Protein backbone atom coordinates (compact mmCIF):
# COMPACT_ATOMS: atom_id res chain seq x y z
CA UNK A 1 0.00 0.00 0.00
CA UNK A 2 1.37 3.44 -0.86
CA UNK A 3 2.38 5.67 2.02
CA UNK A 4 -0.30 8.20 2.88
CA UNK A 5 0.21 11.66 1.43
CA UNK A 6 1.33 14.37 3.84
CA UNK A 7 -0.45 17.65 4.49
CA UNK A 8 1.37 20.26 6.55
CA UNK A 9 -0.56 22.86 8.52
CA UNK A 10 -3.07 23.42 11.32
CA UNK A 11 -6.57 21.99 10.66
CA UNK A 12 -8.26 25.31 11.51
CA UNK A 13 -6.54 26.99 8.55
CA UNK A 14 -9.03 27.59 5.71
CA UNK A 15 -6.51 26.62 3.04
CA UNK A 16 -5.50 23.45 4.89
CA UNK A 17 -9.20 22.54 5.26
CA UNK A 18 -9.63 23.00 1.50
CA UNK A 19 -7.02 20.33 0.84
CA UNK A 20 -8.34 17.97 3.53
CA UNK A 21 -11.90 18.00 2.20
CA UNK A 22 -10.58 17.29 -1.33
CA UNK A 23 -8.57 14.30 -0.07
CA UNK A 24 -11.63 12.98 1.79
CA UNK A 25 -13.85 13.37 -1.30
CA UNK A 26 -11.28 11.41 -3.32
CA UNK A 27 -10.77 8.69 -0.65
CA UNK A 28 -7.05 9.49 -0.46
CA UNK A 29 -5.57 8.59 2.93
CA UNK A 30 -3.45 11.35 4.40
CA UNK A 31 -1.33 12.29 7.36
CA UNK A 32 -1.84 15.74 8.83
CA UNK A 33 1.43 17.17 10.15
CA UNK A 34 0.71 20.11 12.41
CA UNK A 35 2.52 23.43 11.98
CA UNK A 36 2.27 25.66 15.04
CA UNK A 37 1.79 29.11 13.58
CA UNK A 38 1.48 30.77 16.98
CA UNK A 39 5.07 29.65 17.56
CA UNK A 40 6.13 30.84 14.09
CA UNK A 41 6.92 27.35 12.81
CA UNK A 42 5.72 28.34 9.33
CA UNK A 43 8.53 30.89 9.07
CA UNK A 44 11.33 28.60 10.21
CA UNK A 45 13.98 27.38 7.70
CA UNK A 46 12.79 23.75 7.79
CA UNK A 47 9.29 24.73 6.75
CA UNK A 48 10.42 27.38 4.27
CA UNK A 49 12.25 24.60 2.43
CA UNK A 50 8.90 23.10 1.44
CA UNK A 51 6.83 26.31 1.30
CA UNK A 52 9.10 29.25 0.52
CA UNK A 53 6.33 31.84 1.07
CA UNK A 54 5.89 30.67 4.66
CA UNK A 55 2.20 29.89 4.16
CA UNK A 56 0.10 26.79 4.86
CA UNK A 57 -0.59 24.21 3.56
CA UNK A 58 2.23 22.30 1.93
CA UNK A 59 1.67 18.82 0.49
CA UNK A 60 3.88 15.84 -0.29
CA UNK A 61 3.06 12.78 -2.38
CA UNK A 62 5.70 10.24 -3.42
CA UNK A 63 8.51 12.72 -3.73
CA UNK A 64 6.58 15.66 -5.22
CA UNK A 65 6.01 18.70 -2.99
CA UNK A 66 3.26 21.13 -3.94
CA UNK A 67 1.84 24.22 -2.26
CA UNK A 68 -1.17 26.52 -2.92
CA UNK A 69 -4.34 24.71 -1.78
CA UNK A 70 -6.21 24.93 -5.09
CA UNK A 71 -3.20 23.63 -7.04
CA UNK A 72 -2.94 20.74 -4.56
CA UNK A 73 -6.65 19.99 -4.98
CA UNK A 74 -6.36 20.01 -8.77
CA UNK A 75 -3.32 17.71 -8.59
CA UNK A 76 -5.13 15.28 -6.27
CA UNK A 77 -8.07 15.13 -8.67
CA UNK A 78 -5.72 14.47 -11.62
CA UNK A 79 -3.58 11.87 -9.91
CA UNK A 80 -6.44 10.02 -8.21
CA UNK A 81 -8.93 10.49 -11.04
CA UNK A 82 -10.31 6.97 -10.82
CA UNK A 83 -11.15 6.83 -7.14
CA UNK A 84 -13.55 8.51 -4.75
CA UNK A 85 -15.78 11.22 -6.21
CA UNK A 86 -14.92 10.90 -9.91
CA UNK A 87 -16.93 13.90 -11.03
CA UNK A 88 -15.22 16.27 -8.60
CA UNK A 89 -13.13 17.84 -11.36
CA UNK A 90 -15.36 16.94 -14.30
CA UNK A 91 -15.21 14.01 -16.68
CA UNK A 92 -14.63 15.93 -19.92
CA UNK A 93 -12.87 19.17 -20.98
CA UNK A 94 -16.03 21.31 -21.06
CA UNK A 95 -17.05 20.26 -17.53
CA UNK A 96 -13.51 20.87 -16.35
CA UNK A 97 -13.43 24.34 -17.90
CA UNK A 98 -16.66 25.32 -16.18
CA UNK A 99 -15.25 24.08 -12.86
CA UNK A 100 -12.01 26.00 -13.51
CA UNK A 101 -14.01 29.13 -14.25
CA UNK A 102 -15.82 28.96 -10.92
CA UNK A 103 -12.67 27.92 -9.06
CA UNK A 104 -11.03 31.05 -10.43
CA UNK A 105 -14.13 33.12 -9.59
CA UNK A 106 -13.83 31.80 -6.04
CA UNK A 107 -10.12 32.57 -5.89
CA UNK A 108 -10.34 36.04 -7.42
CA UNK A 109 -13.78 37.32 -6.30
CA UNK A 110 -15.00 35.38 -3.25
CA UNK A 111 -11.75 34.63 -1.49
CA UNK A 112 -10.30 38.15 -1.06
CA UNK A 113 -13.22 39.77 0.81
CA UNK A 114 -14.21 36.57 2.65
CA UNK A 115 -10.64 35.91 3.84
CA UNK A 116 -10.38 39.40 5.26
CA UNK A 117 -13.73 38.99 7.04
CA UNK A 118 -12.78 35.55 8.41
CA UNK A 119 -9.59 37.03 9.84
CA UNK A 120 -11.27 40.16 11.24
CA UNK A 121 -14.31 38.43 12.75
CA UNK A 122 -12.97 35.02 13.81
CA UNK A 123 -9.21 35.10 14.24
CA UNK A 124 -8.42 38.69 15.25
CA UNK A 125 -10.46 38.47 18.47
CA UNK A 126 -8.78 35.15 19.37
CA UNK A 127 -5.38 36.69 18.74
CA UNK A 128 -6.36 39.81 20.69
CA UNK A 129 -5.84 41.97 17.60
CA UNK A 130 -8.03 45.06 17.28
CA UNK A 131 -10.70 44.76 14.58
CA UNK A 132 -10.79 47.28 11.71
CA UNK A 133 -14.42 48.40 11.40
CA UNK A 134 -13.84 50.14 8.07
CA UNK A 135 -12.21 47.10 6.55
CA UNK A 136 -15.09 44.93 7.76
CA UNK A 137 -17.70 47.27 6.23
CA UNK A 138 -15.88 47.52 2.89
CA UNK A 139 -15.46 43.79 2.55
CA UNK A 140 -19.01 43.00 3.61
CA UNK A 141 -20.17 45.20 0.74
CA UNK A 142 -17.80 43.46 -1.69
CA UNK A 143 -18.91 40.03 -0.53
CA UNK A 144 -22.57 41.04 -0.87
CA UNK A 145 -22.00 41.96 -4.56
CA UNK A 146 -20.29 38.65 -5.21
CA UNK A 147 -23.07 36.69 -3.50
CA UNK A 148 -25.61 38.54 -5.67
CA UNK A 149 -23.90 37.07 -8.74
CA UNK A 150 -23.86 33.64 -7.08
CA UNK A 151 -27.56 33.88 -6.22
CA UNK A 152 -28.45 34.52 -9.87
CA UNK A 153 -26.24 31.66 -11.00
CA UNK A 154 -27.61 29.24 -8.40
CA UNK A 155 -31.12 30.09 -9.53
CA UNK A 156 -30.32 28.37 -12.84
CA UNK A 157 -27.90 25.74 -11.68
CA UNK A 158 -27.94 23.38 -8.68
CA UNK A 159 -24.23 23.84 -8.06
CA UNK A 160 -21.87 26.51 -9.36
CA UNK A 161 -20.38 24.66 -12.32
CA UNK A 162 -23.45 22.56 -13.16
CA UNK A 163 -25.73 19.86 -11.75
CA UNK A 164 -23.12 18.15 -9.62
CA UNK A 165 -21.01 19.10 -6.62
CA UNK A 166 -17.48 19.91 -7.81
CA UNK A 167 -14.16 21.38 -6.70
CA UNK A 168 -15.64 24.81 -7.46
CA UNK A 169 -18.27 24.47 -4.69
CA UNK A 170 -15.81 22.68 -2.39
CA UNK A 171 -13.36 25.55 -2.56
CA UNK A 172 -15.86 27.85 -0.81
CA UNK A 173 -16.45 25.59 2.19
CA UNK A 174 -13.69 26.75 4.58
CA UNK A 175 -14.27 30.52 4.42
CA UNK A 176 -18.06 30.24 4.18
CA UNK A 177 -18.14 27.94 7.23
CA UNK A 178 -16.41 30.51 9.43
CA UNK A 179 -18.55 33.34 8.06
CA UNK A 180 -21.76 31.46 8.73
CA UNK A 181 -20.78 31.41 12.39
CA UNK A 182 -20.78 35.24 12.45
CA UNK A 183 -23.23 38.05 11.63
CA UNK A 184 -21.98 37.97 8.04
CA UNK A 185 -23.87 34.67 7.74
CA UNK A 186 -26.91 36.92 7.11
CA UNK A 187 -25.52 37.58 3.62
CA UNK A 188 -25.93 33.87 2.88
CA UNK A 189 -29.30 33.47 4.60
CA UNK A 190 -30.93 36.42 2.86
CA UNK A 191 -30.17 35.05 -0.60
CA UNK A 192 -32.55 32.20 -1.27
CA UNK A 193 -30.47 30.21 -3.76
CA UNK A 194 -27.18 30.78 -1.95
CA UNK A 195 -28.87 29.59 1.26
CA UNK A 196 -30.14 26.44 -0.46
CA UNK A 197 -26.69 25.76 -1.96
CA UNK A 198 -24.89 26.39 1.33
CA UNK A 199 -27.22 23.98 3.14
CA UNK A 200 -26.37 21.24 0.62
CA UNK A 201 -22.61 21.70 0.32
CA UNK A 202 -21.96 22.16 4.04
CA UNK A 203 -23.80 18.93 4.84
CA UNK A 204 -21.53 16.70 2.84
CA UNK A 205 -19.97 13.86 4.84
CA UNK A 206 -16.48 14.92 3.80
CA UNK A 207 -16.98 18.42 5.17
CA UNK A 208 -18.49 17.14 8.42
CA UNK A 209 -15.32 15.07 8.90
CA UNK A 210 -13.16 18.15 8.39
CA UNK A 211 -15.21 20.04 10.98
CA UNK A 212 -14.57 17.19 13.42
CA UNK A 213 -10.85 17.49 12.72
CA UNK A 214 -11.01 21.25 13.33
CA UNK A 215 -12.51 20.93 16.79
CA UNK A 216 -10.67 18.72 19.24
CA UNK A 217 -12.94 16.06 20.76
CA UNK A 218 -14.49 16.83 24.12
CA UNK A 219 -12.58 15.09 26.93
CA UNK A 220 -14.18 11.76 27.79
CA UNK A 221 -15.62 11.52 31.27
CA UNK A 222 -13.57 9.20 33.44
Amino acid at each position, binding site marked *: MAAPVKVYGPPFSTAVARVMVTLLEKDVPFQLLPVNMAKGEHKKPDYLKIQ*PFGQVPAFQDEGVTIFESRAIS*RYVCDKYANQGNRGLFGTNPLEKASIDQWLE*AEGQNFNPPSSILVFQLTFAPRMKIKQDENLIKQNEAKLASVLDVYDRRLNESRYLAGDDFTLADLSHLPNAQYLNGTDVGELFRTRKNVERWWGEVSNRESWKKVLEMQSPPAPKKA
Partner: protein
Amino acid sequence: MVVKVYGPDYASPKRVILCLIEKEIDYETVDVDLFKGEHLSPQYLKLQPFGVLPVIEDGDYILYESRAIIRYYAEKYRSQGSELLGKTIEERGLIEQWLDVEAHNFQPPLYDLVVQLLINPKTGVASDPKRIQEDEEKLAKTLDVYEERLSVSKYLASDTFSLADLSHIPFGNYLVTTLKKEYLIRDRKNVSRWWDDISSRPSWKKVLELHPPVL
Protein backbone atom coordinates in the same frame (compact mmCIF):
# COMPACT_ATOMS: atom_id res chain seq x y z
CA MET B 1 -15.98 30.02 -36.48
CA VAL B 2 -13.23 31.64 -34.47
CA VAL B 3 -12.95 32.34 -30.74
CA LYS B 4 -13.67 35.96 -29.73
CA VAL B 5 -11.64 37.53 -26.92
CA TYR B 6 -13.09 40.60 -25.22
CA GLY B 7 -10.93 43.55 -24.08
CA PRO B 8 -7.59 43.08 -25.93
CA ASP B 9 -6.32 46.54 -24.85
CA TYR B 10 -5.87 45.31 -21.29
CA ALA B 11 -3.56 42.87 -19.53
CA SER B 12 -5.79 40.01 -18.36
CA PRO B 13 -7.19 39.41 -21.87
CA LYS B 14 -3.59 39.44 -23.13
CA ARG B 15 -2.98 36.36 -20.97
CA VAL B 16 -5.55 34.61 -23.14
CA ILE B 17 -4.31 36.01 -26.46
CA LEU B 18 -0.74 35.01 -25.60
CA CYS B 19 -1.88 31.45 -24.94
CA LEU B 20 -3.90 31.31 -28.17
CA ILE B 21 -0.86 32.46 -30.17
CA GLU B 22 1.42 29.93 -28.42
CA LYS B 23 -1.10 27.21 -29.29
CA GLU B 24 -1.49 28.46 -32.88
CA ILE B 25 -5.21 29.07 -32.45
CA ASP B 26 -6.93 31.73 -34.58
CA TYR B 27 -8.93 34.36 -32.72
CA GLU B 28 -10.81 37.64 -33.07
CA THR B 29 -11.13 40.46 -30.56
CA VAL B 30 -13.98 42.66 -29.36
CA ASP B 31 -13.06 46.00 -27.84
CA VAL B 32 -14.28 46.87 -24.35
CA ASP B 33 -13.46 50.35 -23.09
CA LEU B 34 -13.06 50.25 -19.29
CA PHE B 35 -12.90 54.03 -19.04
CA LYS B 36 -16.30 54.29 -20.73
CA GLY B 37 -17.67 51.66 -18.30
CA GLU B 38 -18.40 49.21 -21.11
CA HIS B 39 -17.51 46.29 -18.82
CA LEU B 40 -20.56 47.16 -16.71
CA SER B 41 -23.07 47.32 -19.55
CA PRO B 42 -25.99 44.85 -19.36
CA GLN B 43 -24.75 43.13 -22.55
CA TYR B 44 -21.32 42.57 -21.07
CA LEU B 45 -22.64 41.45 -17.67
CA LYS B 46 -24.71 38.79 -19.46
CA LEU B 47 -21.42 37.27 -20.59
CA GLN B 48 -19.30 38.02 -17.50
CA PRO B 49 -21.53 38.62 -14.46
CA PHE B 50 -18.64 39.87 -12.29
CA GLY B 51 -18.02 42.75 -14.73
CA VAL B 52 -14.30 42.10 -15.24
CA LEU B 53 -12.16 41.23 -18.28
CA PRO B 54 -11.79 38.95 -20.16
CA VAL B 55 -14.54 36.70 -21.42
CA ILE B 56 -14.37 34.51 -24.52
CA GLU B 57 -17.08 33.38 -26.89
CA ASP B 58 -16.28 30.28 -28.92
CA GLY B 59 -19.42 29.75 -30.96
CA ASP B 60 -22.08 29.26 -28.29
CA TYR B 61 -19.51 28.46 -25.61
CA ILE B 62 -18.78 31.26 -23.13
CA LEU B 63 -15.97 31.10 -20.59
CA TYR B 64 -14.46 33.71 -18.27
CA GLU B 65 -11.50 34.05 -15.84
CA SER B 66 -8.29 34.27 -17.88
CA ARG B 67 -6.55 31.44 -16.02
CA ALA B 68 -9.53 29.10 -16.59
CA ILE B 69 -9.55 30.07 -20.28
CA ILE B 70 -5.84 29.41 -20.79
CA ARG B 71 -6.09 26.04 -19.01
CA TYR B 72 -9.00 25.07 -21.28
CA TYR B 73 -7.26 25.96 -24.55
CA ALA B 74 -3.89 24.56 -23.48
CA GLU B 75 -5.62 21.26 -22.79
CA LYS B 76 -8.02 21.26 -25.73
CA TYR B 77 -5.23 21.93 -28.21
CA ARG B 78 -2.64 19.80 -26.45
CA SER B 79 -1.36 18.35 -29.69
CA GLN B 80 -0.48 21.65 -31.40
CA GLY B 81 1.77 24.61 -30.71
CA SER B 82 3.91 24.80 -27.54
CA GLU B 83 3.31 22.29 -24.75
CA LEU B 84 2.29 24.49 -21.83
CA LEU B 85 1.00 21.88 -19.37
CA GLY B 86 4.08 19.73 -18.77
CA LYS B 87 4.65 16.07 -19.55
CA THR B 88 3.60 14.38 -16.31
CA ILE B 89 0.93 14.77 -13.64
CA GLU B 90 3.66 15.88 -11.23
CA GLU B 91 4.90 18.58 -13.61
CA ARG B 92 1.28 19.68 -14.08
CA GLY B 93 0.96 19.90 -10.29
CA LEU B 94 3.92 22.30 -10.16
CA ILE B 95 2.52 24.37 -13.03
CA GLU B 96 -0.77 24.65 -11.12
CA GLN B 97 1.21 25.66 -8.03
CA TRP B 98 3.05 28.51 -9.75
CA LEU B 99 -0.10 29.62 -11.59
CA ASP B 100 -1.77 30.00 -8.19
CA VAL B 101 1.31 31.75 -6.78
CA GLU B 102 1.04 34.22 -9.65
CA ALA B 103 -2.65 34.77 -8.91
CA HIS B 104 -2.29 35.12 -5.13
CA ASN B 105 1.20 36.55 -4.53
CA PHE B 106 2.33 38.32 -7.73
CA GLN B 107 -0.87 39.70 -9.25
CA PRO B 108 -2.61 41.34 -6.24
CA PRO B 109 0.11 43.87 -5.29
CA LEU B 110 0.98 44.45 -8.96
CA TYR B 111 -2.65 45.01 -9.91
CA ASP B 112 -3.02 47.51 -7.09
CA LEU B 113 0.04 49.39 -8.38
CA VAL B 114 -1.60 49.56 -11.82
CA VAL B 115 -4.76 50.98 -10.23
CA GLN B 116 -2.85 53.44 -8.04
CA LEU B 117 -0.36 54.68 -10.63
CA LEU B 118 -1.98 54.15 -14.04
CA ILE B 119 -5.75 54.09 -13.62
CA ASN B 120 -6.44 56.53 -10.76
CA PRO B 121 -4.70 59.46 -12.45
CA LYS B 122 -6.91 58.93 -15.51
CA THR B 123 -10.08 58.95 -13.43
CA GLY B 124 -9.19 61.76 -11.07
CA VAL B 125 -8.90 59.51 -8.02
CA ALA B 126 -6.10 60.37 -5.58
CA SER B 127 -3.41 57.74 -5.14
CA ASP B 128 -2.32 56.42 -1.77
CA PRO B 129 1.47 56.57 -1.27
CA LYS B 130 1.29 54.26 1.76
CA ARG B 131 -0.48 51.59 -0.27
CA ILE B 132 1.99 51.98 -3.13
CA GLN B 133 4.85 51.37 -0.73
CA GLU B 134 3.13 48.31 0.77
CA ASP B 135 2.42 46.94 -2.71
CA GLU B 136 6.08 47.30 -3.67
CA GLU B 137 7.22 45.60 -0.50
CA LYS B 138 4.83 42.67 -1.03
CA LEU B 139 5.91 42.32 -4.66
CA ALA B 140 9.59 42.50 -3.68
CA LYS B 141 9.10 39.71 -1.12
CA THR B 142 7.40 37.56 -3.75
CA LEU B 143 10.18 38.22 -6.25
CA ASP B 144 12.74 37.21 -3.60
CA VAL B 145 11.11 33.78 -3.52
CA TYR B 146 11.14 33.70 -7.33
CA GLU B 147 14.85 34.61 -7.29
CA GLU B 148 15.58 31.58 -5.11
CA ARG B 149 13.42 29.27 -7.22
CA LEU B 150 14.88 30.48 -10.53
CA SER B 151 18.40 29.82 -9.27
CA VAL B 152 17.64 26.08 -9.42
CA SER B 153 15.06 25.97 -12.21
CA LYS B 154 15.13 27.54 -15.65
CA TYR B 155 11.41 28.38 -15.52
CA LEU B 156 9.07 28.45 -12.55
CA ALA B 157 7.62 24.94 -12.67
CA SER B 158 10.44 23.12 -14.48
CA ASP B 159 13.04 23.56 -17.17
CA THR B 160 10.35 24.12 -19.78
CA PHE B 161 8.29 27.27 -20.39
CA SER B 162 4.72 26.70 -19.19
CA LEU B 163 1.37 28.36 -18.51
CA ALA B 164 2.76 29.42 -15.13
CA ASP B 165 5.47 31.62 -16.69
CA LEU B 166 3.11 32.84 -19.43
CA SER B 167 0.61 34.06 -16.86
CA HIS B 168 3.12 36.62 -15.53
CA ILE B 169 3.91 38.33 -18.82
CA PRO B 170 1.05 40.80 -19.45
CA PHE B 171 1.07 42.42 -15.99
CA GLY B 172 4.84 41.98 -15.62
CA ASN B 173 5.13 44.15 -18.71
CA TYR B 174 3.76 47.14 -16.78
CA LEU B 175 6.73 46.92 -14.39
CA VAL B 176 9.21 47.50 -17.21
CA THR B 177 7.15 50.15 -18.96
CA THR B 178 4.64 52.62 -17.57
CA LEU B 179 4.96 51.67 -13.87
CA LYS B 180 8.70 52.46 -14.12
CA LYS B 181 9.63 49.74 -11.61
CA GLU B 182 11.99 47.73 -13.77
CA TYR B 183 14.51 47.70 -10.91
CA LEU B 184 12.32 45.16 -9.08
CA ILE B 185 13.25 42.76 -11.88
CA ARG B 186 16.79 43.92 -12.66
CA ASP B 187 17.95 43.89 -9.02
CA ARG B 188 17.38 40.12 -9.06
CA LYS B 189 19.80 38.26 -11.32
CA ASN B 190 17.71 35.13 -11.92
CA VAL B 191 14.38 36.94 -12.17
CA SER B 192 16.08 39.26 -14.69
CA ARG B 193 17.32 36.31 -16.77
CA TRP B 194 13.89 34.69 -16.64
CA TRP B 195 12.03 37.89 -17.52
CA ASP B 196 14.23 38.52 -20.57
CA ASP B 197 13.68 34.96 -21.71
CA ILE B 198 9.89 34.88 -21.41
CA SER B 199 9.28 38.42 -22.68
CA SER B 200 11.33 37.89 -25.81
CA ARG B 201 9.17 35.00 -27.02
CA PRO B 202 7.80 35.71 -30.51
CA SER B 203 4.26 35.22 -29.19
CA TRP B 204 4.61 38.16 -26.77
CA LYS B 205 6.18 40.36 -29.40
CA LYS B 206 3.17 39.58 -31.61
CA VAL B 207 0.72 40.48 -28.79
CA LEU B 208 2.43 43.85 -28.27
CA GLU B 209 2.40 44.54 -32.00
CA LEU B 210 -1.25 43.60 -32.59
CA HIS B 211 -2.68 44.89 -29.29
CA PRO B 212 -0.54 47.71 -27.92
CA PRO B 213 -1.25 48.34 -24.23
CA VAL B 214 -3.35 51.44 -23.51
CA LEU B 215 -2.11 51.87 -19.94
